[in-house]
Each structure stands twice: as C-alpha cells, then as structure tokens.
C-alpha cells in the first residue's frame, strides 16, 4: 500500500537525474582511473586502520580498568569524596545555563527528516562497516551489526516515509541532542566497566556496573537540564527578550567566579571581619565615590573634573608604594578609572545616575570578591591546590583566556597607537613572547619567577602556570585583535571624529567592537589553542588531566598496580581533549554562522 503511494508520487514528480548506488559510486568514487585507484587505496587504508584500532582497543590485555578505577582522580584529583556534590552542583550550574541559553537564544532550529535520516544511515553504515572489518567474535560482530542495522532502518524510514511526504514534518535538533544525551544516561545504568580486583597475589579484571555515585548524578543532571530548559522557555515567553538575554549573559559571566571561588572552594567566611572592616569600607567608598563622581560629572567639561580625577589617580598610584590593604588600592584604582571615564560614559540626567549605580555595584563586587577570596578554603585536600585533574585543566584554560583579554586589547591598541614608546613596548612584548615557546615560558615561570618575588610572596604552581599562560596568550590575542583593528576602514574613524567623539569613545564604541567582531573566528581558535596548551603543565609536574593520565596512574602501586597502562590512559585523555575542543569548535561555528561574522 505504502509502496503504491510512493510510486504514484514518483510518477508525478519531475524527471530526476538517474540515481542509485551504482550511479553514486560512479559519480563520487570512480570518475576516472586515477580517482578509482585512490578510492581503492583509501578504502584499504581505512579498513586496516579501523581494524587495527579496534583490535587494539578491545584486546583483553588493555588495562582499561586503569581509567575506570582512577576516574575520580582524573576528573577532580584529591577533591574530598564527601564534598563531591559541589562539583556536581557546578556541573549542574553549567548545564542549566547551557539549557537556559538554548531556550532563550533559540539555537538549534529544525532539521529536515531527509537530513536526519541520512545522518542515521551514516551512523548505521559505519557500525555495520565496523562489524564487518572488526576482529570480534561472531556474537560481538552480530551485536555491532544489529545496532548498525537498527540505526540504518530508522534512518531509512525517516528518509523515505517521512522525508518524501508532501508536507514534511520537521525534527527539532535539540530533541535529537536530548535523545542522544538520554541514551548515554541509559548506557550508564546498563553498561559494565572493567574494574581491578585482587586475587591472592595477583590482580584480575572483572566487569562491574558503573558506580552509583556516577550514574545517579548524571541522571539528575539530565532531567535537571530538561527542566531548566522548559522552565526558562515558559518564563521567557511573556517577557522582554533583551532583558532576559542580558541577565543570562551576566549569569554566564558570574558563573565562573561563583563556581571556582565560592562553590568549589567553600570559603570559611569570617563574619566578624566582614562587619568590622569590609562593610564599613564598602559604605565609605560608595558614599565618597558618589559625591566625587557627582562632582566630576557636573564638572565634566571643566578643568576641575580633570584635576579631581588626576588627584585620584595619583593617590591610587602612590597607594602601591605605601603598605596598605589591597582592597583600598583596588578601590582607589577603580574610583580613579570611573572618574576618568565620566566624560565618556557619564554626563547629566539618567546617564549620570547610571554611572553612579555602576560605581556602587562595582565597589560592592570588588569588596565582596576580595572578602571571599581572602577567606580560607573550607575544602581540605592533600595537595597544593583544591583543583586537579580535568577540573584544573578547565580552570587553567578559562583563567588564561579571561585574564589575557585585557592584556591583548591593551597591547593591540598600543601596537597600533601613534605614540612611539607605547608602540615600542607593545611590539617588544608581543614579539618577545610569541618568539619563545610556551614550554620555555612555563619553565621560566617555575624556575626563575619565584626567585624574583619579594619576601613574603610565594606563588602556587597553579598561579605560576596561569601567569605564564596568560602572558603567552595575551601576545597572541593582541596580534589577532590588531588584525581586526587594521581591517577597519579609515572612514569609520573619520565619521566618529566628525560626530565629535573623543579618542576613548571612538575606540570603545566604534573601533574595538568592529575589530573584535571581525576577528571572532581567530579569537575562538585561540581559545581552543589555549585549552590544548594547558596540557603542557604536565612537564612542570602540575597535576592536570594529562599529568594524571601519563605519570600518576602508571606509577601507582597501592592498592592496584597499573604498569603498562600508559597508552590506554593516553588514548582516553586524547579522547576527552578531542571531545571538548571538537564540541567547542562546532559550537563556535554555529554561533559564527548565526552572527554572520568572519565574512569580510
């Protein structure tokens, strides 16, 4: 019956060029002799490579139990087990934010069943191919081939039954992603993983289900993500989209410090000191700043405003000469910056009020963050830092990227500036840093930097690594941003001048946004490179993800020995790195397309 309708449809359809597997083969693999030879060679290479890889992976001699047994070590290092809920909560924060963003920005869209079907068929075909060339036992082959066939049939159905209907039902991409995520969660409950066991003097490998402490949180995260998505969707329906997007962006910005400095650190807050010192400081600076900024913005066009700002700046700079609380120095610095930016962002009326609110908010943020970071960590771990494993890798990457952005922008502006000494200094910095490999900078930071620190200051390994990576990354960012700055036509500058903008206004409102937008793809590439570069800290013996995989696990002897497992752990590490960078590059590609950037 169904076939009949199909054939009927075909009858009325316009004349299609001939298609079918043979035609496809001729057109895509055997256009000419050369192409045919290359195809045959390529197929042989693929068969050998896949077969070799599978044979290696599923060899019973591979110690995959080294990975499963040390999974917690690889992820969070020595983070105490009874506090692990903090880590899970952090992951939840990220997943909830991702879900909320997906709901608000309406990323994803819908896909035609034809395309989805093709993807399914590709997956199914790959699985069947693997089953055919694999060195598995017959039952193993059957399992893989069966799974492949299932995928293939689903894909085929989607393609022919739904895809060729007159009114094609569209499949939401997010739904597919959810299903994939769900399948992984189901796998957590069903799959058994290798686990080491002592039998007399020897170790054996048994297969055990994944621990409850892993699968329950993931299941909860899965449903939590769905709930967050739906909730935000309902919430956002009747509200101003711009405001929601802005607050979500704010949450993203806040999430990192919240997770790293509050959630994961669990600071032991000293309330007494907060009331006697931090609160009065905050109030004092807010009030004083309020009056100063009001005065400055009233006199924005006068000499007096400049003089006040100048005096503030001098006070802020000299505060670094005298011993005093860092908080005061920070606040003075921030106030001076605000005073100088008043002519640019302030003025009178609502603008002035906005500036004053912004000042109070900034002062509050500074006081609060200094207060929280100066409290001792409540997480007691045996080691230098509460960060380790994959957690450390991610934090290193994020910190290096975030901290290097201001350096990159400043140095790019310096290098394109008309003032020769600024230009010379930034050029020297950029060329010097880029000329020397990161590993050398890391060695310098670990061997030389501590010696150059004054008495009373020691840098932890994480800080040294972050410092070196920020220093290094800043130079690369600067070069990228400089490319963007140079791509902006002179007309833009002239136009902003004609509107009476100051140099700062021109830079902040006209040049920089366009420059950064123009080089966004390059900046994303730099972020990915930084993430990969974090692996270098293993050479200076920081316990990051790679270090644990490469050094720590192969040198364990208690309670289990994982000698000769180094290749296994390395492959696992490579896979995790690949997963992160690949996902990130795909995501950035999508955003780039949506924003239409990078098309100059």
């Amino acid at each position, binding site marked *: 019956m169904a076939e009949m309708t199909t054939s009927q449809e075909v009858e009325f359809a316009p004349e299609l060029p001939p298609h079918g597997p043979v035609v496809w083969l001729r057109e895509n693999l055997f256009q000419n002799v050369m192409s045919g030879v290359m195809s045959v060679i390529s197929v042989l290479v693929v068969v050998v490579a896949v077969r070799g890889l599978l044979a290696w992976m599923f060899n019973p001699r591979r110690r995959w139990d080294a990975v499963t047994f040390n999974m917690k070590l690889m992820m969070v290092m020595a983070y105490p087990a009874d506090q692990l809920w903090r880590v899970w909560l952090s992951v939840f924060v990220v997943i909830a934010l991702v879900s909320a963003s997906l709901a608000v920005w309406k990323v994803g869209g819908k896909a035609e069943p034809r395309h989805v079907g093709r993807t399914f068929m590709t997956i199914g075909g790959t699985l069947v191919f693997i089953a055919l060339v694999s060195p598995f036992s017959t039952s193993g082959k059957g399992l893989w081939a069966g799974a492949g066939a299932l995928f293939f049939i689903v894909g085929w159905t989607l393609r022919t039954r739904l895809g060729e209907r007159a009114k094609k039902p569209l499949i939401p991409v997010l739904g597919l992603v959810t299903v994939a995520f769900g399948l992984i969660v189901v796998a957590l409950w069903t799959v058994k993983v290798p686990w080491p066991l002592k039998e007399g003097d020897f170790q054996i490998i048994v297969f055990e289900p994944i621990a409850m402490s892993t699968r329950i949180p993931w299941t909860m995260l899965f449903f939590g993500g769905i709930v967050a998505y739906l909730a935000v969707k309902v919430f956002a329906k009747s509200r101003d989209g711009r405001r929601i997007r802005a607050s979500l962006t704010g949450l993203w910005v806040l999430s990192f410090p919240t997770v790293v400095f509050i959630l994961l650190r669990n600071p032991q807050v000293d309330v007494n000191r907060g009331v006697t010192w931090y609160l009065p400081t905050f109030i004092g600076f807010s009030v004083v700043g309020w009056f100063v900024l009001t005065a400055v913005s009233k006199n924005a066009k006068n000499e007096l405003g400049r003089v006040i700002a100048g005096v503030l700046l001098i006070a802020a700079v000299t505060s670094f000469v005298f011993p005093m609380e860092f908080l005061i120095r920070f606040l003075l610095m921030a106030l001076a910056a605000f005073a100088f930016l008043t002519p640019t962002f302030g003025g009178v009326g609502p603008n002035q009020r906005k500036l004053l609110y912004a000042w109070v908010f900034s002062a509050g943020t500074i006081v609060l963050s200094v207060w929280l970071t100066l409290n001792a960590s409540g997480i007691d771990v045996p080691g230098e830092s509460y960060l380790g494993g994959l957690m450390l890798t991610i934090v290193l990457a994020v910190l290096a990227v975030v901290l290097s952005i201001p350096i990159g922008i400043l140095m790019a502006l310096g290098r394109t500036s008309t003032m020769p000494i600024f230009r010379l200094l930034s050029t020297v910095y950029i060329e010097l840093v880029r000329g020397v490999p990161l590993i050398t900078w890391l060695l310098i930071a670990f061997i030389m930097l501590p010696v150059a620190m004054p008495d009373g200051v020691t840098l932890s390994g994480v800080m040294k690594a972050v410092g070196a990576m920020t220093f290094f990354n800043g130079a690369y960012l600067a070069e990228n941003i400089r490319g963007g700055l140079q791509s902006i036509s002179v007309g833009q500058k002239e136009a902003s001048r004609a509107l009476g903008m100051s140099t700062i206004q021109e830079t902040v409102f006209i040049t920089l946004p366009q420059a950064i937008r123009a080089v966004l793809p390059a900046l994303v590439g730099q972020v990915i490179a930084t993430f990969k570069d974090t692996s270098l800290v293993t050479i200076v013996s920081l316990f990051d993800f790679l270090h644990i995989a490469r050094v720590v696990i192969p*040198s364990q002897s208690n309670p289990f020995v994982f000698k000769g497992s180094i290749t296994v752990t390395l492959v696992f590490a490579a896979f995790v790195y690949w997963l992160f960078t690949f996902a990130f590059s795909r995501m950035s590609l999508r955003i780039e397309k949506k924003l239409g950037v990078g098309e100059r």
Partner: protein
Amino acid sequence: MRKRLAVLFAVLALVAAACGSGEAEEETTTTADDAVAPAQDTGGSTLAAVQARGQLICGVSGTAVGFSETDAQGNTTGFDADFCRAIAAAVLGDANAVLFKSLTSAERFEALKNNAIDVLVRNTTWTQSRDTDIGMQFVATTYYDGQQLMANPANLPAINAGSTLADIDGATVCTNAGTTTEKNITEGALVNNVSITLETVEIFPEAMEKFRAGSCDIVTTDGSGLFGERSAAIQAGEEGAESWVIFPASPISKEPLGPVVRQGDDQWFDIVQWTVFATFIADEHGVTSANVNDMMNSTPELSRLFGGEGELQTSMGLSADAFLQVIAQVGNYGEIFERNLTGPLNLQREGSFNMQWFDGGLIYAPPAR
C-alpha cells in the same frame, strides 16, 4: 585638547591599573587560592614560619613507586611521605598537617632555595656538589640505596645476576634525565671501557615502558626503584617479570637518600635531623607506634627522647614530647620501611645497609642524651 588630555590620563590609569592589579592579584590569591601562607622564614626561622602556618610544606616526587606516590584518592603515600609526616608530627604535633608539593627533579632544588618548601624529601642523593655548591644542606641518610641495572633475559640472554658493568657493551640503557644516575652510568661506561647507547626519558615510568617493549635493553636507577618496579610488575601479572635480572650485586654507585634543608637555618636542620634519628633510636630499641606509650620510660635514653625526663627537645624549639608524637603517629624507622617498601613492594630490609648497625647495617643514630 581637553579630550586628548583626558585620553592621556585614561591610558595612564589603565596601564597603571593593569600593573597594579597584576601585582595585587598575585598577592591576594596566594593566601586565597591555596589558603597557605608562604613557606617564608619569619626572620630566617623556618620553624617559626611552619608553626605560624600550622602546616609543613614538604617537597616530594609524587610519582616514585614506594617512596612518594599518589593514590586513587589523591593522597601522597610512601617512605618519603612518611618522613614528611614525622617532621610535621614533631613540629606541629599532627602528622597530617603536611602539604605535599610534587616537584620534578629539575625544580626541586630551586623550590627549596626559593622558600617554596620547608624541607625536601624527594629521594635525593647526597653528593658533595649538592651539599656544598648550591645553598642547601643534607640532613641524614634515611635510605642507603645504590644504582643498579635491570635486564630482561628474554631479550638479553647474556646477562645474569652475576653480570657487571663490563658486560653491557653494546646495550641500550634507559634512565631518567637530570639525575645522578645519568652521570653515574656515563662515567661507569667510560671507566669500564664499554660503549653503550644512553636513552634518557623525562620520567621513570616511561623508561619502564620502553624496557617492557624491548626498546631499551637495560634500565638503570636506584636499586630500590628497580626492585619496586619488578615486584609491581609481578603483582600485575606481567609475563616474565619474575625473571628480570637486577645486577650487579654490589651497586655501581652509592646513593644515600635523605631529606634536604636550606643552608643557614641550624635550628631547622637540627629538628629535621633529630626527627630522623628519633625514628632510628626507636627502631633500635624496638619501640613501635603500638607500644611507645608503655615503653617511653623503660630506659633513661628513651625517657629523655620521648620527653618523660628532661627537656632535651625544648632547646630546638620543640615541645618535650615531640618525638613521642612522631613514633605514636607515624612509627619507627622499621615500621615506615615495612609499611611502604616491604609490604607493598616486597623490598627486603634484611641484608641491606638499611639494617641497624648491630645487624650489619648502617642505620646508626647518635645517643639521645
């Protein structure tokens, strides 16, 4: 004009802010991120700094089988790690008040010199140049080791337990870079007039990996490390690991391993040294963590050592019962040895130089009086 002026100042402000905040960040995060005050001497006294901090910062390897390794929970365990704990027990009364800092062999001395650590217990060989040259001081020998070589007879049938350095002509030898072993084997080959290919790797597990694969004919490092690796391989059920030959019978070098402190702080030197000696003396008299409270007054010497009589320890700035805490919380030398080396790795103390002096070994502490 005014605009330019403002711009000028703003740039100034920005740059100054950048410089300032950079500096500030370092300092704030020092105390914040790690909740550890620097290992800085308050007026040159490491003891005062440690007591003020409430924690001992101990430099270890973190990846040396049996000596200091990282377990699946992230804790540092091992022979060296236990001596760190012993020092913490003596100084702070709490064996767990230790912060282990994993160091590569390249940065260990710099870390000590830079005050980044209080004491270095990272199977470091006591040599003349290290003791005299670069601003540090060896305290005592906790483990008498010696460099040996290991070969797999399956690949190298000519080697047996009686072989010497003269018998390795033509072999490829693996060891880790930047250690005394590298220099020893180079010199040893020169002296014996044999030609070897020396392959250095960054970390010892990699050398073992190459040895397993047959890419290296021979690996060489301290004998303890070789015995540890072999017994771990046997436990892991590796084929042929029982037949790996460790030779020559008398090591090719003397490798006395022990803690290192910074030069110039005699009080701290004394504390670390006598903590080590206390574990020796307790071992000598059979005082263990189980019976120390019963035996602490059994002889006058023990009584003095454990603070039952006199105030010997207070002259070092420690509490009188400091060494009682060491033995009670960590154990004596024999216990530390048994727990970390004999138990898991089957590394025998009997017959080695690490026996007490009256049993033919070299473990000998001056009397406590």
